[in-house]
């Protein structure tokens, strides 16, 4: 228990303070070998049974890794063929310092006992610690420590063999001098048994730089030069966001700037990849341009050829000259990369070329194509796989990367689901044994003790209303008349927090997953199925635990009082929306369920009216439902979801419950209540809406939510009934994302929920599929004395961190859901050609963006082939119209288009649109069945840039 030796480490920072830190050197650090007799035994997964098979060494050996190996060759290390590795603490610290994501990956390997990794704390071990010498660089010092640890191991365990794996030439040579066997990863991997696949995963560091290779890109500034530039205000730091439509355009979000900085062209982007933190240099104001309105795709095929880029660039320049004054944006160019945010990308191989080098096309169109080196091109051609970027040299048109792993055959449902999940960072592995062990044992019985602690509502007629096929029912309702001509309304939510106790593995897993993700034919549960579809699901006729929120209301839906308690309920019936609607409408039915539904419906209408009067927004986003063939798992039909009155009825009560709970928990936890806010969008966000409204002669008032709601209600057109919906779709896209936050982190007036127009809001009603609701349940349970607090629940900092994760996962889950819909829509359209009604959403210079309500699709109808201006259409930028002869196409005009799926690019299957109606000579095609199809070369492309839809309480229920 006592320390053995101490030494002092000094450094100075800030206002030149001298810091002194203690550093204890110990004699009780275990070497990690169970056969060792001198060290005190601690758990270690190093084992003699595992053999590293590398033909360079004729004997079994243990690997000691240098920092550069871990930082750069993580993909290789993640392969199970490499085992028995010793990670030195010196290395671990440096890895953590340099890259947190890599550190996390490393730790997950270390935690996996089957990989046989061991962390040796060399810097606190009495024999392997050495003080830093005066003037010694930190890198040299670390290398020296690594070598010291190697030699120590060799002395300590003379009958074991150790190999130092390092890609640092200097370190390798010095190790050789000390007679430590050292090899580089490339050498090592080459001599491994399974080297084919592994070789692809090697990060290519020293890619043959041809001396005469022409630089395609301007050089990057050095880090110090950038930092100085930023300090002096000559350069700006920001996050680069690539355009999805135009591979030669992007934006840099600079903090403190009102507008994003526009960057264009190869030189402007200068090897920045979406997400990177970059330094930008601003151009002179006279050189500022507006964002181009053309859609450009990278069609390059080889690494060196840049002619097509140059052509595209010229086009951009031409475009820039015509920039309109009022759309001019601050423009600049990227001069250096401050921090790369490269991750792993899903995608496919491009083309059919042979050879070692292949071009990889990422699924995410904001990511450039990547050059990889592979010996298994034939195999990869049929696969979707993952690639990571290693570097982007100046002379290469594409970044260089390496293969990580294959996901499955292209076009298969399972592969595509995997891609969607991976691209959106959705945790979707099986629940671990540890998590499953937290589940209650079956048969699950309600004990007398439970009954004592809860209010028994089993006698009340409660029912649930959900979409068809829903198995995770988390809410149920009841309504009954009580004395004084009042109604008692109850919302009963599954008591998930009863089963998920704080701090358990189950709780941590659920908190990490944050939400259930719904794909078209797959549901990725937040909690294991036993809970989500059975014990927590408020199924009809079964006794279940619930958390009830019960109001007494008068007939005008005024709340007289509210109470919350845990209860036991027995739902009389689990209904679908349709069934509930029929029950309400069927006058012959007069049982208690029907009556309570009617009362609920009546109250809901009053509530809704009141809510809308206060300025709640009714927004629209096309939501489609895909009917699947249950056997072949192929989509049968795509249709817009049907809405019943009962949808809105359930939604109203869920909103009311959420609001009531929010008030209650904020009262008792002013600092750490988990709330949900929807920030008021900045007025510039509404520009497209106002502009569109102006063209149509509507005055869109955006100064307050209430006025906006009013304007939207007023903007109707008799001849075009869909117009109002279109405006609402536009309005939806102006909104910001609603987010969770702990009450202590914001000022009171920032709690406001814009979309719902309520000062306080939270999520309480779906604990089975949202983690935020579980936290809210726990808080509420404390306020009504049903449960006790635990430390993290009251820790503001922890709640802030939790909220960040919840917000991130929610956003990703939303995107993943949409991606899944898009894929299945494509699958459905494969080989079909149809004429459909559509509406012009935006008029662009070379295309019309068309919304097809029936499928909720948004596609581009190209008016001219790329790089050329149409000789049929005239673009009027001020009025946003395209004119062909006498015909003028406005935004929101109704059109009929022919849709077909262009599968030339398997990864980016796109819809090709052809105009059918209005008929324009030389451009439009005849309606189907009238004439033979003309072949039009116009390209079209789906555009899934559907921005966040705003909160609509509970209406985004399960698909």
């Amino acid at each position, binding site marked *: *228990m006592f320390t053995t030796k101490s030494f002092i480490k000094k450094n100075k920072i800030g206002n030149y*303070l001298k810091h002194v*830190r*203690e550093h*204890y050197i110990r004699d009780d650090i275990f070497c990690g070998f169970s056969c060792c007799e001198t060290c005190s035994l601690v758990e270690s997964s190093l084992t003699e049974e595992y053999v590293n098979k590398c033909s360079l060494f004729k004997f079994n050996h243990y690997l000691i890794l240098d920092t550069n190996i871990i930082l750069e060759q993580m993909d290789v290390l993640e392969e199970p063929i490499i085992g028995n590795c010793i990670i030195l603490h010196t290395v671990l610290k440096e890895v953590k310092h340099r890259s*947190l994501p890599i550190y996390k990956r490393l730790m997950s390997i270390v935690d996996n006992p089957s990989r046989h990794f061991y962390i040796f704390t060399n810097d606190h071990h009495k024999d392997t610690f050495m003080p830093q010498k005066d003037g010694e660089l930190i890198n040299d010092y670390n290398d020296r420590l690594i070598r010291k640890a190697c030699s120590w191991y060799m002395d300590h365990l003379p009958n074991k063999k150790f190999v130092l794996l390092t890609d640092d030439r200097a370190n390798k040579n010095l190790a050789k001098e000390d007679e430590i066997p050292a090899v580089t990863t490339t050498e090592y991997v080459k001599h491994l048994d399974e080297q084919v696949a592994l070789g692809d995963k090697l990060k290519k560091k020293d890619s043959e730089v041809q001396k005469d290779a022409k630089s395609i890109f301007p050089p990057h500034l050095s880090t110090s030069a950038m930092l100085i530039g930023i300090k002096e205000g000559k350069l700006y730091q920001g996050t680069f966001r690539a355009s999805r439509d135009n591979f030669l355009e992007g934006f840099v979000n600079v903090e403190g700037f009102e507008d994003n900085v526009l960057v264009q062209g190869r030189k402007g982007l200068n090897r920045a990849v979406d997400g990177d933190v970059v330094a930008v240099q601003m151009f002179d104001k006279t050189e500022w341009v507006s964002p181009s309105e053309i859609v450009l795709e990278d069609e390059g095929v080889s690494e060196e050829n840049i002619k097509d880029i140059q052509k595209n660039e010229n086009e951009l320049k031409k475009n820039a000259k015509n920039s309109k004054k009022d759309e001019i944006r601050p423009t600049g160019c990227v001069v250096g990369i401050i921090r790369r945010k490269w991750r792993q990308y899903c995608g496919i191989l491009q083309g059919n070329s042979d050879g070692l080098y292949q071009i990889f096309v990422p699924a995410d169109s904001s990511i450039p194509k990547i050059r990889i080196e592979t010996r298994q091109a034939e195999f990869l051609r049929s696969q979707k796989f993952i690639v990571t970027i290693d570097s982007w040299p100046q002379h290469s048109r594409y970044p260089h990367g390496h293969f990580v792993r294959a996901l499955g055959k292209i076009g298969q449902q399972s592969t595509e689901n995997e891609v969607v999940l991976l691209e959106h960072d959705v945790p979707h592995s099986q629940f671990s044994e540890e998590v499953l062990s937290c589940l209650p044992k079956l048969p699950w019985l309600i004990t007398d003790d439970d009954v004592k602690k809860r209010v028994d509502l089993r006698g009340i007629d409660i029912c649930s209303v959900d979409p068809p096929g829903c198995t995770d029912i988390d809410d149920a309702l009841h309504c009954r008349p009580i004395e004084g001509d009042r109604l008692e309304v109850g919302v009963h939510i599954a008591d998930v927090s009863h089963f998920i106790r704080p701090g358990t593995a189950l709780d941590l897993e659920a908190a990490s997953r944050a939400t259930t993700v719904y794909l078209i034919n797959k549901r990725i549960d937040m909690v294991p199925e036993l809970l989500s579809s059975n014990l927590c699901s408020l199924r009809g006729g079964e006794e279940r635990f619930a958390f009830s929120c019960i109001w007494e209301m008068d007939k005008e839906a005024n709340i007289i009082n509210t109470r919350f308690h845990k209860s036991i309920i027995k739902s009389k019936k689990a209904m679908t929306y349709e069934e509930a609607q029929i029950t309400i409408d069927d006058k012959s039915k007069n049982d208690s369920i029907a009556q309570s539904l009617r009362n609920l419906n009546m109250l809901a209408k009053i509530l809704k009216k009141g809510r809308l009067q206060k300025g709640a927004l009714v927004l629209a986003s096309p939501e489609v439902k895909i009917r699947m063939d249950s056997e072949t798992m192929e989509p049968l039909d795509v249709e817009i979801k049907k809405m019943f009155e009962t949808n809105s009825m359930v939604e109203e009560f869920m909103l009311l419950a959420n609001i009531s709970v929010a008030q209650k928990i904020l009262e008792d936890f002013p600092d750490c209540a988990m709330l949900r806010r929807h920030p008021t969008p900045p007025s510039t966000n509404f520009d497209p809406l106002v502009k569109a409204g102006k063209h149509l002669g509507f005055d869109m008032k955006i100064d307050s939510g209430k006025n906006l709601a009013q304007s939207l209600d007023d903007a109707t057109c008799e001849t075009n009934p869909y117009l109002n919906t279109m405006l609402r779709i536009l309005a939806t896209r102006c909104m910001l994302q609603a987010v969770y936050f702990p009450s202590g982190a914001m000022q009171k007036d920032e709690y406001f929920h814009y979309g719902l127009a309520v000062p306080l809001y939270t999520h309480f009603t779906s604990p089975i599929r949202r983690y935020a609701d579980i936290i809210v349940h726990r808080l509420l349970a404390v306020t009504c004395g049903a449960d006790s607090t635990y430390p993290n629940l*009251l820790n503001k900092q922890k709640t802030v*961190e939790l909220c960040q994760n919840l917000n991130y996962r929610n956003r990703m889950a939303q995107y993943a859901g949409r991606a899944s819909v898009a894929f299945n829509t494509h699958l459905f359209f494969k080989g079909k050609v149809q004429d459909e009604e559509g509406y012009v959403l935006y008029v662009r210079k070379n295309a019309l963006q068309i919304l097809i309500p029936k499928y909720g699709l948004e596609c581009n109808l190209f008016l001219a082939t790329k790089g050329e201006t149409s000789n049929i259409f005239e673009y009027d930028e001020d009025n946003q119209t395209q004119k062909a002869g006498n015909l003028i196409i406005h935004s929101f005009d109704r059109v009929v288009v022919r849709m077909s799926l262009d599968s030339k690019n398997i990864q980016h299957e796109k819809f090709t649109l052809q105009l059918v109606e209005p008929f324009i000579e030389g451009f439009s095609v005849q309606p189907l069945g009238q004439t033979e199809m003309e072949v039009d070369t116009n390209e079209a492309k789906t555009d899934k840039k559907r921005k966040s839809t705003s909160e609509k309480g509970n209406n985004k229920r399960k698909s």
Partner: protein
Amino acid sequence: MSRNKELLSKIGLRLDGRRANELRRIRCKLGVFTEPDGSAYIEQGLTKVLAAVYGPHQVRGQRSKAQHDGALVNCQFSMAVFSTGERKRRPRGDRKSTELSMHLQQALLAAIKTELYPWSQIDVYVEVLHADGGIYPACVNAATLALIDAGIPLKEYVCACTASLANNDVPMLDISHQEEAIGGPTLTVAALPMSGKIVLMEMSQRFHLDHLPKVLEKALQGCKDVKNILDEAVRLHVQDVGSSTGWVIKN
């Protein structure tokens, strides 16, 4: 504040290489000065404190302060201006020093047999030379040693120690400045370790009730460990002083 830093690594070592339940190195010496009646110096890790005891003597200044039933214990806590990273402007008299003086007095009163010296006064002065976390415990421990050096009868050792929570879960002992800066709440406990009585407890932030028992237990264990170290130092010192006057100590 860096959120990436974990106070306790996966391997169970803290940033400075200690384990969760280990104290920092304690070195101490009794009788460092000749002028005071008792004096002591203690190092806990890098935290360094000098303590001096004067008395029991006549009550200075206002005679009316004298108590008929026991000695007046007068404590002054002071920090050298260079003791902290940023230079302090005043060595004492600020609010924190006054508070610590009072806490020190509170802890010492619990141990000193004041009833033996009515109408008199005992002065205890502590001077922090280097503050690197756990100043208060170091002061209490140093003062105890100085009191022993002054030959003032004590009920037993009074020792103090800090404890905190690593990674919101594991209680850890004797918090260094670095850990204080990164970490969560710190619990300071002064106790009479032999009888297990707590004479002072203070928290820097809110502690959740669930954590308190285990952290408190840890801190008490720390006080006991400190007591053992101090006790050994006292015995060695007595042996030293004694042997110079010709005592022979058996065992």
